[in-house]
């Protein structure tokens, strides 16, 4: 199970190179280009984090340790063949739901929300759902007809909606929307008719009204603040205003590493977590942010390439979803920090300070690597 047959086959063909580096990567089911992209992002991220955290090496070491843990998680997950993952998917999903219910009843409260579960270590079950939901959706569609029929769609909708609602109730709107997105992406990749998508879009308008009524006050405030940040420059609009000032004042090449006045003089809130992109923009300018975005694009592109290369429905849907959800993370965070969408509390993947999300992300990329190294080299 942990020794995929194709790797053995490749090894037998290229014994001379067994001991070289790419051979080693292959033996470990690691995709070199993907790993390179991820490490570059992480390295860049650590660089920015050091400055954003007020040149604190404690925070940097902390983040590096988390990164190490996340990389190990990736390595472990990469050893799990897609078939194995697929078989265990319903169980993982069910376990995730149980944990979410436990969070709502027994979870730890932090920052006004009940998101954490303490079973020896504190963690957020919603993080596990970030992978479990697309896995479950892909699992459901794996041996059903593609594009999915309407009845199947309804079932998938329930599979996505239940965890989404449970997480939204914590409340954690950002994560719940991302999880919903990861499931919906699977459906879209599975060939949901364009007409249906358009129809849903039309329905979304009244849906937005309903959603508005269900939103918490702070969530409504975030939307209102986005529409007019200057209405409350010292209150809710402060983050967006300061973030825009930071990015805008960075110009083409930035103020230089550790010289961002917005970040270092504490004008920019959440500068080492959700708003770290603004620190990057301030200190490295347009050149810096485009470099990071290019790295993200490379990783996403590689992920989509792996999805296309995948041989079975589950693998390709899951690989596609993981890659595109990663894009959604990047988009939501950068759009939020640049004031395009409301502040929803989504970290910049692999760069923002924080543990669990990094492990989840890397585990996701581990799945991608597993899928890639387990693809069947069939003649096209």
């Amino acid at each position, binding site marked *: 199970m942990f020794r995929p047959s194709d790797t053995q086959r490749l090894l037998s063909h290229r014994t001379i190179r067994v001991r070289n580096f790419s051979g080693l990567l292959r033996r470990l089911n690691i995709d070199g280009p993907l790993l390179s992209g991820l490490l570059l992002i992480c390295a860049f991220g650590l660089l920015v984090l050091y400055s954003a955290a007020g040149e604190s090496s404690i925070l940097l070491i902390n983040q590096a340790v988390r990164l190490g843990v996340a990389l190990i998680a990736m390595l472990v997950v990469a050893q799990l063949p897609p078939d194995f993952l*697929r078989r265990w998917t319903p169980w993982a999903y069910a376990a995730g739901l149980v944990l979410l219910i436990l969070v709502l009843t027994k979870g730890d409260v932090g920052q006004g929300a009940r998101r954490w579960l303490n079973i020896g270590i504190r963690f957020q079950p919603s993080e596990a759902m970030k992978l479990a939901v697309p896995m479950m959706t892909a699992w459901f569609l*794996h*041996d059903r*007809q*593609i*594009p999915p029929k309407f009845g199947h769609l309804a079932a998938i909708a329930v599979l996505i909606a239940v965890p989404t609602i449970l997480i939204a109730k914590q409340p954690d709107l950002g994560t719940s929307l991302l999880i919903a997105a990861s499931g919906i*992406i699977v459906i*879209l*990749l*599975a*060939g949901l008719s364009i007409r249906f998508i358009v129809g849903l879009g039309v329905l979304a308008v009244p849906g937005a009204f309903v959603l508005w009524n269900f939103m918490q006050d702070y969530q409504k405030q975030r939307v209102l603040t986005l529409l007019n940040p200057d209405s409350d420059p010292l209150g809710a609009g402060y983050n967006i205003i*300061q973030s*825009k*000032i*930071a*990015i*805008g*004042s*960075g*110009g*083409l090449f930035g*103020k*230089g590493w550790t*010289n961002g*006045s*917005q970040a*270092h*003089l*504490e*004008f920019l809130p959440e500068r080492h977590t959700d708003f770290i992109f603004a620190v990057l*923009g*301030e200190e490295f*300018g*347009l050149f810096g*942010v*485009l470099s990071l*975005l290019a790295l*993200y*694009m490379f990783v*996403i*592109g590689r992920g*989509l390439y792996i*999805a*296309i290369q995948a041989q*079975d*429905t589950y693998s*390709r*849907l899951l690989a*596609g979803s993981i890659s*595109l959800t990663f*894009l959604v993370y*990047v*988009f939501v965070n*950068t*759009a939020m920090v*640049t*004031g*395009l969408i409301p502040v929803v509390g989504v970290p910049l993947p692999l760069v923002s300070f924080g543990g669990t999300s990094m492990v989840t992300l890397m585990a996701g990329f581990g799945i991608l690597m597993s899928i890639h190294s387990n693809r069947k080299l069939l003649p096209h």
Partner: protein
Amino acid sequence: MSLLSPIKDHHSERRLFIGRVILASIISFIMLGVVVARLVQLQVFDHQLFAEKSQGNRVRIEAVPPIRGLVFDRKGRVIAENLPAYQLELIPEQVDDIDDTLRRLAAIKLIEPNDIPRFIELSRGGQQFKPVTLKFRLTDEEIANFAIQRPRFPGVDFQPRLVRHYPHGGLFAHAVGYVGALNTADMQRLDSARYAGTSHTGKTGVEGSFEDSLHGDAGFRHLITNARGRQVPASNRELLDSLPTDEAANPGSNIYLSLDLDLQKVAFNALEGRRGAVVALDPKTGEVLALVSSPTFDPNLFAVGMSTGEFRGLQDNPDRPLFNRATHGTYPPGSTIKPMLALAALETGATNLTRKTVCIGYFQLEGNEHRYRDWKREGHGPVDLHDAISQSCDVYFYELSIDLGIDNMHEYLTRFGLGSQTGVDVSGERSGVVPSREWKRTNFSDRDNQRWYHGETVIASIGQGFMLATPLQLAAAVGTLAMRGDRYRPHLVAAIEDPLSGERQAIEPDWLGNVAIGNEFYWDNVLEAMNDVMQGPRGSARAVGTGAPYKMAGKSGTAQVVSIAQDAEYDEDELEERQRDHALFVSFAPFDDPRIAVAVIVENGSSGSGVAAPIAKAVMDEYLGYSHVSAE
């Protein structure tokens, strides 16, 4: 779960999936394209705007208060200066338990227990890194005491600052005035840009009137501050290099007074703490040489700040130490106006130099039984104008007043500057009263009171009744007598000095005109009579002037206290003391080349020649350099 499920078409599924991935990639590009477009907008097109906002965020402009100009006397001795003093400050964010800290500070008597609630409020209200001043000026003992205990009070420390200091205490309290903490009214009145960072402003005297010159202009310093307004140390050069240049504060101008420290001391000491005032001026220029009001107070109390109790003590003191008697006190001038009335009578022909009146001790108006008494009960006998001045015969002037008439009296006394402000360069002086028919008509509402009575003319001739004058007015008037009619605006400030260039701009004498009594013969006679007051064989103040090494002229005055404040605080003896006449004396010297004119008033001093004249003499002696001679 078999891959070979019959209903699945793997090739078409793969094609469909690739199509969707391509579609997703296009959408991804569009999404990231939007973000990139936004970044280009922020970082390229709006860069300038955000760069300025970022600059505005971090750069705080802090005002640097100017150093207040110094005040010197006419010989360059310091009258008002700025001294570093230590103040006790508490930085709220560095103190764990503010209540406890304040209680312990009160226990070692550094602060008043009553002030604790106020300090707690101040500590909680402001920015936590901004110090709260607990005490403005620490004594050396307090500093030493606190220095030992400092480790017990983290977050509490003493800091130096400049405090206005008046080295001569109360000596110049009324002339130079004092500075006090800016209040709301000051804030509205003053230019906020010039006063940014200033804590005190001139309130009274020269400090108040020359505030504009003394204050200077605030400078500006650019500080790098973080989001909470705290200053960031200049360790990071990148953050500092684009700062705008600072603007240094422009120190206030120095002021040279015409007042003389020694003369001021002599005048003040001569009053011996009695309620009264002395004004001495140079009749040739109007320069005020001494301006003393007694009792006085310590102006340093205002500069440092005093407790409500201390202030109330000053305010409620029945001797009114805060009251500037020299410019704000109005008194019946008494006989001090007689020389002026004599000139008026000569000029208008109401009398002549040879006319004699037999003084029998009182005067009666025709058809009226009322006796207007002379101060000398038995009368002066036959007196002419010269005698009437030198011996201060009231009856002569009673009689003369009927011929002169109140409106002529008003006209000529007004020419001497009585009844209107002298225009001295410190604000707030009173104008006094020189009554006339017109004045009575406009100042009384009752028809009976609006009428002018002959009796009122009679008592006006000896400076009683409605007539009121300030000591400053009397000094100016006797100066005009000394100058044979030339009037100069009295002023306390002699020169204003630019502290940077050292350039001194002198205040030129301001000639206000002449009283237009042209006959020198009249002047000779009246002034000779005034000389005889002090140095003649029968002069009323000959005890003071006889034997002096220089020739002088003067005129005493004794003013009845018309109304008495029925203050419950006084016992019978004291009430009696306060019913006594005010003692006045005006004089000038040297006779032939007048250099100093003096007016003295001693409230309830009883005798002008006996109490006030020696004070005037002492001042003249000092100024003319005869203090040692006369002391023997």
